[in-house]
């Protein structure tokens, strides 16, 4: 027991070191560029502070209306107290519009940094219970606590993803421990913070039903009612006040703005990029062949305007289509979860669910790639294939965030963040997989998955035991560099202002390739595992 306490203490200390270093970098990044999301969140502070609850989802003073679920509104409400202490103008609905003083920047930035403590706690729980080897633990910390994607999205572009992902990590850690009720509760809480996380709800539902409730009839009914009661209580706490005011419809309308288009302004690297490109290509070909193809009036990003379709040839895509496709893509995983609900696979399944949501979802934002990259870090060190897959995936997901920071000032920062992350991963994975002898001794279970599937694309270097990404991976990364160099330097130099969308399109398409591959790889991994 003494030893156990000592372990805990060392973990805490080491983890705090990691967190401290990342916090320092985040502090230094305070003056960097922030997007309109910054003003969005400031406006929410003002809404929740100066209006009564019944007006929160109705107010239209600013274009950035409150469109997150109620828990997030409550969260902003609590923050707004402190904001009011710091500078009352922050929480002023009218005077605070587009307020850019030092105080508000500092306050909001610091609030994100402090909220990252939730992520830290999630990681702490995971590393305390499931990561025996020191190297694996450090690897997890490097991948999550030092994640470049989180730094770019949260601490530069501005959002509270670290905090939300922290809740997800907490939920996963409870599920992996076998404490399903807690895991489910945390997930329900998370859903009431940000409904985009609902993509994994089918996985949770099937898993909890099978693993937690499927214990004979009487016990099962009892457990279902307990789980239902807890989740119901969470949702009641969130939505109760709005039901009381009779605003549920309004709240839901705000939360699901289907008026937005299939793609975000910058196309997230997902399946629809290929779909759109195919449509454009076909239209171009047919026009060359002399057919009269009308140019579609609607745009992909503009949303549904009447009946007009943004596609010239291919069938129209509606939110319902995307919903069905996500469910279809999820179904193999759901079946697997039903057949064999193992707590060890939960992280993988959840990551897979978010991958599906990212690939096939409606109006997906490229930031959503964090939703699967971060949970996937939990299993990244499990086997060599996982490591290889994760290495590429996380580089690509971070790279796909580059267009978020388009100003020259942040250019070196994002590049260096990505480089540092790659080098760290490279070192970490190499360290983990070179000393195979020790790894075998401590974690014999690791071998099993290693024999199951070789990474299809890369060369078979498993028997060596060293961490290599294979020639296809290398070619892909080289291509990534070419895409970046083209977009940043060659394109403006050679073509000037012509075809300004090409660099972004290239990034989307090129990254989508890897994400598609990752999806197939994950699906395969889930199918073959037993």
């Amino acid at each position, binding site marked *: 027991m003494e030893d*156990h306490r000592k372990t805990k203490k060392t973990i805490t200390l080491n983890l705090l070191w990691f967190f401290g270093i990342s916090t320092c970098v985040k502090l230094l990044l305070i003056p*960097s560029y922030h997007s309109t999301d910054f003003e969005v969140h400031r406006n929410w502070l003002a809404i929740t502070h100066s209006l009564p609850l019944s007006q929160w989802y109705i107010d239209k003073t600013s274009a950035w209306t409150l469109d997150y679920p109620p828990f997030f509104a409550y969260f902003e409400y609590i923050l707004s107290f402190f904001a009011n202490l710091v500078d009352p103008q922050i929480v002023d609905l009218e005077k605070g519009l587009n307020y850019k003083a030092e105080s508000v920047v500092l306050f909001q930035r610091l609030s994100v940094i402090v909220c990252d403590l939730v992520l830290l706690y999630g990681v702490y729980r995971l590393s305390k219970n*499931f990561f*025996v080897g020191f190297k694996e633990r450090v690897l997890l910390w490097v991948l999550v606590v030092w994640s470049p994607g989180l730094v770019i999205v949260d601490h530069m572009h501005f959002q509270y993803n670290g905090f939300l992902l922290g809740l997800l990590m907490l939920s996963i850690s409870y599920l992996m421990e076998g404490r399903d009720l807690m895991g489910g509760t945390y997930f329900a809480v998370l859903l009431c913070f940000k409904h985009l996380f609902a993509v994994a709800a089918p996985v949770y539902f099937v898993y909890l039903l099978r693993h937690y409730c499927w214990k004979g009839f009487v016990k099962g009914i009892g457990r279902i009612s307990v789980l239902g009661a807890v989740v119901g209580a969470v949702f009641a706490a969130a939505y109760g006040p709005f039901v009381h005011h009779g605003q549920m419809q309004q709240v839901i309308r705000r939360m699901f703005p289907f008026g937005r288009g299939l793609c975000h302004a910058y196309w997230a690297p997902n399946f629809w990029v290929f779909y759109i490109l195919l449509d454009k290509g076909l239209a171009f070909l047919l026009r060359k062949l002399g057919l009269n193809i009308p140019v579609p009036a609607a745009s992909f990003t503009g949303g549904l305007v009447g009946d007009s379709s943004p596609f010239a040839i291919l069938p129209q895509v509606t939110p319902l289509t995307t919903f069905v496709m996500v469910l279809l893509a999820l179904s193999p995983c759901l079946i697997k979860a039903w057949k064999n609900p193992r707590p060890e696979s939960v992280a993988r399944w959840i990551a897979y669910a978010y991958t599906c949501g990212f690939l096939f979802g409606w109006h997906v934002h490229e930031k959503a790639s964090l939703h699967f990259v971060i949970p996937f870090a939990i299993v990244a060190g499990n*086997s060599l294939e996982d490591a290889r897959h994760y290495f590429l995936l996380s580089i690509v997901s971070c790279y796909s965030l580059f267009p978020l920071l388009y100003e020259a000032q942040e250019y070196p920062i994002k590049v*260096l963040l990505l480089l540092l992350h790659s080098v760290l991963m490279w070192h970490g994975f190499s360290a983990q997989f070179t000393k195979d002898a020790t790894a075998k001794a401590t974690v014999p*279970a*690791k071998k099993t998955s290693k024999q199951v599937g070789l990474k299809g694309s890369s060369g078979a270097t498993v028997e060596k035991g060293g961490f290599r990404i294979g020639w296809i991976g290398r070619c892909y990364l080289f291509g990534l560099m070419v895409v970046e160099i083209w977009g940043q330097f060659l394109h403006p130099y050679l073509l000037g202002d012509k075809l300004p969308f090409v660099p972004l399109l290239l990034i989307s398409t090129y990254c989508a390739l890897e994400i598609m591959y990752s999806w197939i790889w994950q699906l395969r991994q889930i199918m073959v595992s037993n």
Partner: protein
Amino acid sequence: MEKKERKKVQILKLETESNNLDDISCLFFQKGIMGSFLLISIFSLLLRVAVSLHSYSGAGSPPKFGDFEAQRHWMEITTNLPIKDWYFNTTNNDLSYWGLDYPPLTAYQSYFHGLFLKYFDPNSVSLFTSRGYETCFGKLLMRWTVLSSDLLIFFPAVLYFVLVYYGGTRSGLNKSDVAWHIAYNCISLGLTLGAVAAVLSQKDLLACVLFCLSLNHKQEIGSRSSFEGVLKTSDVCSVIPYVLLTENLRAGNLLSQIRLDEDCDNVFSRKFAEGARLRVLSESEIDLRSSFEEVVNMMHYQCLTTLIKGWKNNDLAMVTTLAQQMSAYYAPAFFSHLFGSCLRRKNPLLEVFKLGLAVVGTFAIVWWPYLHSRDAIFGVLSRLAPFERGIYEDYVANFWCSTSVLIKWKRLFTTHSLRFLSLVATILAFLPSMIQQVLAPSSKGFLYGLLNSSFAFYLFSFQVHSAAASARNLVDYGIAWCVLYVSNAFCIVLYVSSSVS
């Protein structure tokens, strides 16, 4: 995978906890020297870029602005005026407004950076109209010039040094992280470090050229501020292991590094000089507090030197202290070592001649535009820092200052004789190692010589400046400092772990 099994395993084996520190370093430094170099240089670059997001000295404070403006003005001058006018007061070149007062190599560097700025933002270096030019883009370009010079000169020099110095030994891998960490960002320093590496790898001519270049880049670099001095007080008072002392030295270095970043490269020293001059104006300024700090600094150094003797890998300390001194401080060591090793060769006269030729040649190339007349040479020379600022400025250096508490030097001697006294003391201080090097040159001895001669200059020479950090600085650099301290402490952990193994 089998998490449950693992959990059981965990309870049975609480492995790795005792040697976990080992594992961290093995994780980050297991890819060999190049791997760790990559890691550390990327991280330090990231820090630099992140720091560069913040404000700089003299931002938005007309009429003279600050060091940032000085650098920019040099670029303006060098890109717009013919090379022979750079150092001279003409209608187009007002020397009283941040006139160029560093050696030619600095001017050339400004010229190239100026070209870079001109290409992207011509307004930022246009003659006269660009004074006080402060746009985001201009600032960004300036920052990038600093980064690029770090990347092109300093980092390779450090790499070269580490490869030469630690490359051969088995334990080199572990040490390398320590050596990496001395990442000061001066070009001059990079050149000096390159020269040291060249000496160690027996490439005498290359060493000569590099060292001459570094002499020509600038005469001095900012040594240390009293803020750092305060930091060290705690260390000296509580006698902690030597390793930590060097680690803290490194913290100091990092601090000055980040300030150099802030101040846009090499103008740091300028600030020091100004600070020193201000102090001279009001005699009482050299008050008890600052002299106390000087004492502490010196005590720290003495502590260091005595501890060095007892520590077996002491060469490391030299490397760390190296960088805080002016490159000119090392001249005796370079001279004596190279001279000494020439004498051992088959044809001593020829060798000495070759070295002499390299020195003269390098100087000639750098000074070429001004070699056409005596006036031009002296004109430039008179602009260079030590002469104008007065090498004999009435500012008391370390040893003198700290002992003045007991002996009132200034009352006992005239300035002239003090000057002489300090000269003699300096020479006496570095002479032993010089003689030793001439008689028996060796790599280790050379490093000792570097340390010795830099100490000699630091302690006994006349014009060492030590600027006090103002309160504004403390706030400005507070965040930056916090970052550095944490990362530095992290390195202590790494270092201790590697030295234990």
